[in-house]
């Protein structure tokens, strides 16, 4: 069935449709025949539909169903028909069924035959009998006909087909037989082995070319001859013959059908080994024998060679560096070489048999056996690494191989080798450890490690990398930079990667990458990984996060910038004092550049003549102490000594031990100097305030300056105004110096302006410095100075605003740097001293004047008092004696006059004190000056008369004066009495009243008294007394004119004086008259007052 073609699979539309169409047609015909006419329509319709559905080649659900299912519809049909009709019809259907089956599943020919049969069966009776007479019974017969004819047709066809097939097979057999004979003959002719056939008498019947070649006899020569004569050596011939005879008798032969080796004889008489297989063949009543012979001379030769090779193999195995062992098929050791013994630690005897297994390490034995068992039956190569446990201790790792030895198809034993792989194992172990170590190093390395392939994909990253990007090391593989970085960064990184790949050179660069939103600095080292050709196949990278370091660097940079920018010296040094760093400030302070200073011991800054304080400072630093605000003296590069304030801090290591030192140095020279100057000025000021007199102050100032400024000798040369020379009247030097000779010399000397240092200062009126006296021509007593070792000097003028009072000169033994500040300071001091001296002199002058004034006042009181008291005493004493009346009156007049004089004096003093106290005031009203002048002149007349002086009043005032009558009277008194006082006897005093516009003028002139113009200016000053007054001992205190001026000016007037030798002296006062009044109308009330 399976081989038969599926009718539904036939090709072509017709081929496919035909079987179904035929079935349908058949079924329709059957329906027409079997179904009564009144029901035919329905049945045919149902049948048609069913057939179409069932037989449709496109009805997919049918396709996978078994073939027999296709028989269901017809069966169903017939079953239905059977149910509808009588049982005969069912029978008929059953008869037809096989026909249908056949039709369905037969070959094309069968189908055609069946259809033809059926068609004939149906049509023939119809045609023969005629339609009208066609009966149902006939139909049943017809059906039987159809079935029978179909069966017959089919059977016939099969028979025909079978007979044809047998005939073809017989023909083919004959062909094959003739071919076989031919082939056999060709085989025998071309075979390498000799083929000889013989009959039961031993005569040769067949002889192939190989036999000719092997034995030397040709086919023609051999045929018909006895085999034994030809190729069996004479010694073997009897045995051959008896063997042959016995076989013929008994049918048994020891050599028959076996391959035996024996000697054969060549035509040339040589014997040689052959392999013989002889087989008997019954032919009719007798036997024929076929013999195959093979020349085995070469094989023998080979076997001999093999024996030699085995000997060589043995030698090899004993000397081979690998252990070799051999076992039989059961696994018992038959051979081990020395190397094996050495490795296994077992002798060959011990290994023999099953003993070798003892050498295998107990832990590995089971494994070895297991592998062995599995490997051996299949003939696989046994290969295993295992250990030998040596009896004398120690393990040896070996790699064992074994292979089955086959001999003739069967396993005859096993040959194995063992190689010492202890070193290899160790190396492997080391390699493994090395790899895990490397992995550990990579993973625990603080650096980020990665490998990228040529397409810039990560192939390997370490744990740090993974942590950085928050990814696992596995997940990172295959990713590229785009997955981790922003596009800009990718571009930068990629450029570097490319360069590494292109150049094959490693590069190192710094990169700022944004990681989780924060920029971080990385130091990245990229290098190519090279393949065997030396071309880069990948990029390796080691990257370190140096953000903190960069930050620290930046901070350090900032600190360094601050250090560089600061004005103070910042110096680094070791604990041994060697300079390690030197900033710009240090260059400024000390004058040395960084190159000059770094590497030198710091003590090079200490002046040679100063105490070296560096070792002590270093000791303190080594103890970890901090030195703060330590003042030290250092020397600049230009040799100038400076004072510095040092702050030194130890630089500590992590353990807190000092390892270096940082020095902060500030130049405080100017500050110190200012301090010193301030102190000096202060002490000078103190001296000035404490000094009682001018005489005290100079030595104190000399001392303060000399001590404060470090000068050794100080001199004060005062100006002698009259002689116009300088004289040394003060000298100061500390008691420790013996400068007596110098002092004596100085005190002897006098300097004129411009001569010597003091004279020069006096002349130039400014400080003068002498840096080296010995070189200075101005310093005269050079030898004396040299004797005292005096080197430098400074001269300062002591001055007031307008004149030089003296000169101070200071000397020192050192060559001093006389800076401008010092000179300024000393100039200030000298001005201070000068002002002080001036002030003191002024004060002393004032004291003197005051004393003089009091002396004068005292005198002025005593003189009138002397007269008053004296005359009173006279009167009292002489009362009894009876002085003449006129005498008494005269005495009394004197007393009155002197009383008046006293009163005037007291008034003057009172007025002056009022003026001084600011309490001077007027009680103004209209005053008749004519009247007032008259009274005054009359009052002064006795005095004038007493001195023999003429007194005269003239002129008139145009009207009353607005003023205080008492003060105006005092004014007139003062002017008149003053005039009388200075007028020599015989001369005259004139009082003249006049008018000038709205002013009244009172002029008092005295003749015979001349006041020079320079004195005239001072006349109205208080306590001023003219030279006339002093030389002529004219009494008075110098107040009269001052009071007169005060009064006049208080009235809004003016007072003046003029003097000529001819006309004498005139004082005149201009006083404003009563406003709005004239002489006539205003004079009346004044006169009343006067009356």
């Amino acid at each position, binding site marked *: 069935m399976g081989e038969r073609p599926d009718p539904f699979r036939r090709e072509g539309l017709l081929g496919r449709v035909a079987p179904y169409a035929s079935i349908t047609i058949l079924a329709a015909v059957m329906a027409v025949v079997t179904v009564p006419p009144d029901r035919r329509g329905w049945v045919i319709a149902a049948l048609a539909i069913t057939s179409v559905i069932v037989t449709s080649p496109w009805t997919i659900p049918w396709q996978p169903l078994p073939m027999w299912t296709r028989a269901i519809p017809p069966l169903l049909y017939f079953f239905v028909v059977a149910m509808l009709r009588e049982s005969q019809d069912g029978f008929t259907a059953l008869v037809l069924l096989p026909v249908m089956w056949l039709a369905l599943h037969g070959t094309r020919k069968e189908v055609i035959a069946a259809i033809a049969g059926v068609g004939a069966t149906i049509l023939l009776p119809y045609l023969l009998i005629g339609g009208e007479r066609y009966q149902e019974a006939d139909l049943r017969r017809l059906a039987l006909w159809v079935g029978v004819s179909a069966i017959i047709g089919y059977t016939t066809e099969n028979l025909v087909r079978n007979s044809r097939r047998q005939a073809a097979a017989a023909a083919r057999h004959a062909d094959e037989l003739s071919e076989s004979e031919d082939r056999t003959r060709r085989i025998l002719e071309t075979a390498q082995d000799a083929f000889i056939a013989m009959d039961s008498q031993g005569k040769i019947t067949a002889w192939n070319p190989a036999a000719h070649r092997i034995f030397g006899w040709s086919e023609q020569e051999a045929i018909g001859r006895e085999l034994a004569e030809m190729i069996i050596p004479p010694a073997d011939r009897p045995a051959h013959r008896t063997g042959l005879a016995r076989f013929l008798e008994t049918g048994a032969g020891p050599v028959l059908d076996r391959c035996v080796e024996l000697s054969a004889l060549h035509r040339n008489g040589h014997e040689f080994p052959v392999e013989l297989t002889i087989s008997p063949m019954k032919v009719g009543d007798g036997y024929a024998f076929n013999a195959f012979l093979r020349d085995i001379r070469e094989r023998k030769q080979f076997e001999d060679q093999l024996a030699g090779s085995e000997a060589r193999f043995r030698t090899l195995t004993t000397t081979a560096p690998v252990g070799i062992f051999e076992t039989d098929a059961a696994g018992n050791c038959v051979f081990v070489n020395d190397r094996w013994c050495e490795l296994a630690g077992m002798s060959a005897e011990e290994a023999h048999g099953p003993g070798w297994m003892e050498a295998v390490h107990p832990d590995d034995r089971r494994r070895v056996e297991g592998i062995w068992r599995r490997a051996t039956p299949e003939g696989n190569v046994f290969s295993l690494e295992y250990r030998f446990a040596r009896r004398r201790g120690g393990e040896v790792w070996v790699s064992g191989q074994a292979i089955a030895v086959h001999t003739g198809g069967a396993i005859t034993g096993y040959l194995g080798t063992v190689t010492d792989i202890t070193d290899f194992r160790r190396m492997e172990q080391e390699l493994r450890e090395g790899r895990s170590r490397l992995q550990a190093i990579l993973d625990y390395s603080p650096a980020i490690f990665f490998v990228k392939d040529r397409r810039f994909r990560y192939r390997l990253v370490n744990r740090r990398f993974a942590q950085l990007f928050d990814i696992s090391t596995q997940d990172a593989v295959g990713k590229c930079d785009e997955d981790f970085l922003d596009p800009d960064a990718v571009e930068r990184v990629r450029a570097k990667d490319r360069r590494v790949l292109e150049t094959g050179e490693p590069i190192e660069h710094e990169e700022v990458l944004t990681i989780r939103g924060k920029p971080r600095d990385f130091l990245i080292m990229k290098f190519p990984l090279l393949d065997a050709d030396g071309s880069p196949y990948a990029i390796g990278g080691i990257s370190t996060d140096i953000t903190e370091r960069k930050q620290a660097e930046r901070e350090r940079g900032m600190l360094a910038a601050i250090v560089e920018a600061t004005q103070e010296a910042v110096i680094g040094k070791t604990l041994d004092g060697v300079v390690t760093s030197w900033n710009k400030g240090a260059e400024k302070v000390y004058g040395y550049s960084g190159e000059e200073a770094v590497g030198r011991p710091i003590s090079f800054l200490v002046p040679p003549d100063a105490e070296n304080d560096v070792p002590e400072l270093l000791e303190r630093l080594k103890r970890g102490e901090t030195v703060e605000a330590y003042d030290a003296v250092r020397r600049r590069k230009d040799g100038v000594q400076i004072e510095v304030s040092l702050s030194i801090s130890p630089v500590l290591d992590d353990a807190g031990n000092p390892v270096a030192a940082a020095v902060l140095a500030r130049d405080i020279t100017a500050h110190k100097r200012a301090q010193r100057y301030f102190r000096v000025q202060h002490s000078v000021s103190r001296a000035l305030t404490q000094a009682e007199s001018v005489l005290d102050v100079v030595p104190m100032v000399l001392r303060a300056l000399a001590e404060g400024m470090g000068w050794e000798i100080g001199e004060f040369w005062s100006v002698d105004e009259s002689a116009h020379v300088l004289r040394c009247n003060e000298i100061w030097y500390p008691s420790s110096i013996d400068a007596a000779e110098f002092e004596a010399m100085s005190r002897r000397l006098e300097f004129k302006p411009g001569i010597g240092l003091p004279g020069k200062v006096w002349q130039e009126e400014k400080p003068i410095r002498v840096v080296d006296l010995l070189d200075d021509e101005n310093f005269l007593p050079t030898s004396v100075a040299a004797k005292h070792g005096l080197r430098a000097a400074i001269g300062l003028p002591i001055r007031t605003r307008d004149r030089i009072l003296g000169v101070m000169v200071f000397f020192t033994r050192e060559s001093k740097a006389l800076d401008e500040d010092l000179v300024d300071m000393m100039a200030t001091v000298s001005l201070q001293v000068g002002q002080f001296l001036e002030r003191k002199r002024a004060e002393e002058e004032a004291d003197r004047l005051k004393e003089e004034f009091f002396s004068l006042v005292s005198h002025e009181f005593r003189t009138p008092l002397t007269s008053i008291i004296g005359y009173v005493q006279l009167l009292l004493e002489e009362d009894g004696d009876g002085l003449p009346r006129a005498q008494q009156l005269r005495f009394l007049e*004197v007393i009155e006059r002197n009383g008046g004089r006293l009163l005037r004096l007291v008034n003057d003093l009172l007025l002056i004190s009022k003026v001084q106290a600011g309490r001077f005031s007027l009680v103004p009203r209209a005053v008749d000056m004519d009247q007032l002048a008259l009274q005054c002149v009359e009052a002064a007349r006795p005095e004038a008369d007493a001195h023999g002086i003429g007194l005269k009043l003239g002129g008139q005032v145009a009207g009353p004066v607005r003023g205080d009558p008492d003060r105006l009277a005092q004014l007139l008194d003062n002017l008149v009495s003053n005039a009388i006082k200075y007028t020599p006897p015989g001369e005259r005093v004139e009082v003249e009243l006049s008018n000038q516009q709205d002013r009244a003028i009172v002029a008092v002139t005295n003749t015979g008294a001349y006041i020079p113009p320079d004195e005239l200016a001072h006349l109205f000053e208080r306590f001023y007394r003219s030279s006339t007054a002093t030389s*002529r001992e004219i009494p008075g205190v110098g107040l009269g004119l001052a009071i007169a001026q005060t009064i006049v000016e208080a009235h809004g007037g003016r007072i003046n004086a003029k003097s000529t030798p001819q006309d004498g002296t005139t004082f005149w006062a201009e006083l404003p008259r009563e406003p709005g009044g004239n002489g006539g109308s205003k004079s009346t009330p004044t006169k009343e007052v006067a009356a």
Partner: protein
Amino acid sequence: MSNEHEKGTVLLADNDPDILELARFRIEQAGYDVITARDGEHALRLIVDCEPDIVILDVTMPKLTGHEVTRQVRLHERVARTPVIILSGSVKQSDIGLSLEAGANDHIEKPFSPTKLLERVKALLAEHRAANRSQQPDGRDR
């Protein structure tokens, strides 16, 4: 004789006429001859010219002070030993010293009592004469 002998010439010098008159009145009243001067130069000339027995000088006088006149007198051989009384308006201690230094025999402060002045004149003259007698008894007798 002795009385007449005891009387003598007194030179009075003061620039204040009232004081001059006061002293002269008392001394003349006592029987002495009085010559007066108003300034120092005048006084010195009178002393040299008239060789008074005693001289009374005010300190503060025009031209020459009392002290200066005294000094000149002491240098003048003929009148060097003439007793000199200084009248002073000042109360300073230094004035007394100056007076004595200048060679004055006495120093009287103003204001003074005319009677007291007369007593000092008498005493000084007596002293002076006594001294003269003891020094030159022979010479005078011869």
